[in-house]
């Protein structure tokens, strides 16, 4: 009965708690706005916001903007991956190259991509190219660093074993080092996917490039606060979706990792 495998209560608890918690927040939001604690202009009611979102979702323009943001994100992340992973493997597997380029990477890494927006305004202009450049630049660094760590963090015993069996350098790379680096790359992808979205949106918001960010900017300048909130919600859902997908990927990669498999055996 209730003693079956762990207990129904323990298994349902997380979902129930989550539902209760979210519901409480929504109710609180509604109460605060209805009670007039914050003016309607500054904080639209919860129901108003969701209604606005719902009606927006019936328009073509919303989905066009949504698709554009996804496009900018996808290109940015894709380009960053294509550049960062091979470079990371190179810098990670060659100690010399890694050391040589350590200082430039440490200096360029902390530069917030957002600081490049004015430069992009004046060079590539307010086009999709700028959005992709920004997203790529931002997503590049976490992925590069994680790939380097991953290639470096290989178990020395595994390498020594391979070497003692006469496995050549290149083969060691793709048979031992790369599989070992996969979880790190997965972590890098999770971080970079979030960064790429932030920058794609930022580019749209600040440079008026078509997408959710630009739509929000326009709504704000017309004082359509409910729309601004609704768009924030939509962007939040997009971000949540990306996060869920990439952290699931990351968890899979971690489970698959040789060290974890041995632990489970």
């Amino acid at each position, binding site marked *: 009965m209730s003693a079956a495998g762990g207990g129904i209560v323990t298994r349902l608890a997380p979902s129930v708690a*989550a539902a209760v*918690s*979210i519901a409480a927040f929504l109710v609180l939001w509604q109460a605060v706005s209805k009670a007039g604690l914050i003016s309607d202009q500054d904080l639209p009611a919860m129901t108003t916001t969701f209604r606005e979102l719902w009606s927006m979702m019936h328009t073509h323009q919303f989905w066009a903007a949504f698709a554009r943001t996804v496009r900018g994100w996808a290109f940015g992340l894709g380009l960053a991956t294509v550049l960062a992973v091979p470079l990371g493997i190179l810098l990670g597997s060659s100690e*010399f190259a890694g050391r040589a380029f350590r200082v*430039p990477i440490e200096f360029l890494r*902390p530069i917030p991509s957002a*600081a490049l927006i004015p430069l992009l305004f004046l060079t590539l202009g307010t086009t999709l190219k700028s959005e992709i450049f920004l997203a790529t630049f931002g997503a590049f660094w976490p992925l590069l660093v994680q790939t380097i760590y991953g290639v470096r963090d290989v178990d020395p015993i595994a390498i020594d074993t391979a070497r003692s069996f006469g496995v050549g350098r290149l083969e060691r790379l793709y048979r031992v080092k790369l599989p070992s680096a996969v979880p790190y790359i997965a972590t890098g992808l999770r971080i970079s996917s979030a960064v790429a979205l932030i920058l794609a*949106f930022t580019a749209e918001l600040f440079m008026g490039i078509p997408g959710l960010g630009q739509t929000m900017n326009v709504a704000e300048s017309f004082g359509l606060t409910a729309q601004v909130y609704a768009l*924030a919600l939509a962007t939040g859902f997009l971000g949540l979706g990306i996060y869920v997908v990439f952290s699931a990927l990351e968890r899979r990669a971690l489970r698959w990792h040789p060290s974890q498999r041995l632990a489970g055996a």
Partner: protein
Amino acid sequence: MSGRTYRSAAIAAEIAVPLAILAAWQVWTVNANDPLFPRLSTILVQFREMWLFSQFELHVVPSLTRIGAGFAVAVVLGILLGVPLGLSRWGRLLAMPHVEWWRAMPPPALLPISVALLHSIGNRQKISFIAFFCLFPILLNTIDGVRGIDPTFIETARSYGVRRLERIGRIVLPAALPQIFAGMRTSLSLAVIMMVLTEYFSSTSGVGYVLLISKNTFQLAPMWAAIVLIGVLGYVLNLLLILLERRVLSWHRGWRAAEAQ
């Protein structure tokens, strides 16, 4: 290559590569003669003129104040909320949906809302915005740090009658501190980014504001000087945090090294 030759070559490369990149930049910008990409030498001159020290007080101080205050609030709140959440399963079940949502939300999407909700574009809005998003790395790392504490530490303290509050102060907090510092490092770089975003969006002072204005007035050298400053600020702040961490967590390095033997 012998060991010593290799090591000297590596050190030489570590110095040569950055210098080579800077030299290449100078040469390329001189040749290109593009107003959008001033010479490195011009940028450096402009950098010194602006930031040391004529516009330091006008812009750098407000930016640093916002970063500092936002980061401090994030640290305090992150630890105050993270410790109980790390200790309480029910607390986590209730809080995690919210934490996951705000953590996944792209910060710029909340820029207009933060201005509207807080009815300001001054320090109040900026510090709140920075603090809000810097909270989550620290919060999550504090929770992980607390959850990862070896139960033997806690059991030992319990068996000696150390009471709950004292256990938290003397056992839980020090044990979780290494993980908390990892969160702090992430948050600090995030703070710099948030500062730029929020100043660029709506401000009347600060480095981000300078970035915006110089773009609008087509002043390229000041714009580049601002970009370089932002990079330098991020680097220096990160360095300071690492130095602090080294001091506070010196025991941790020694402990880990001893365990590895």
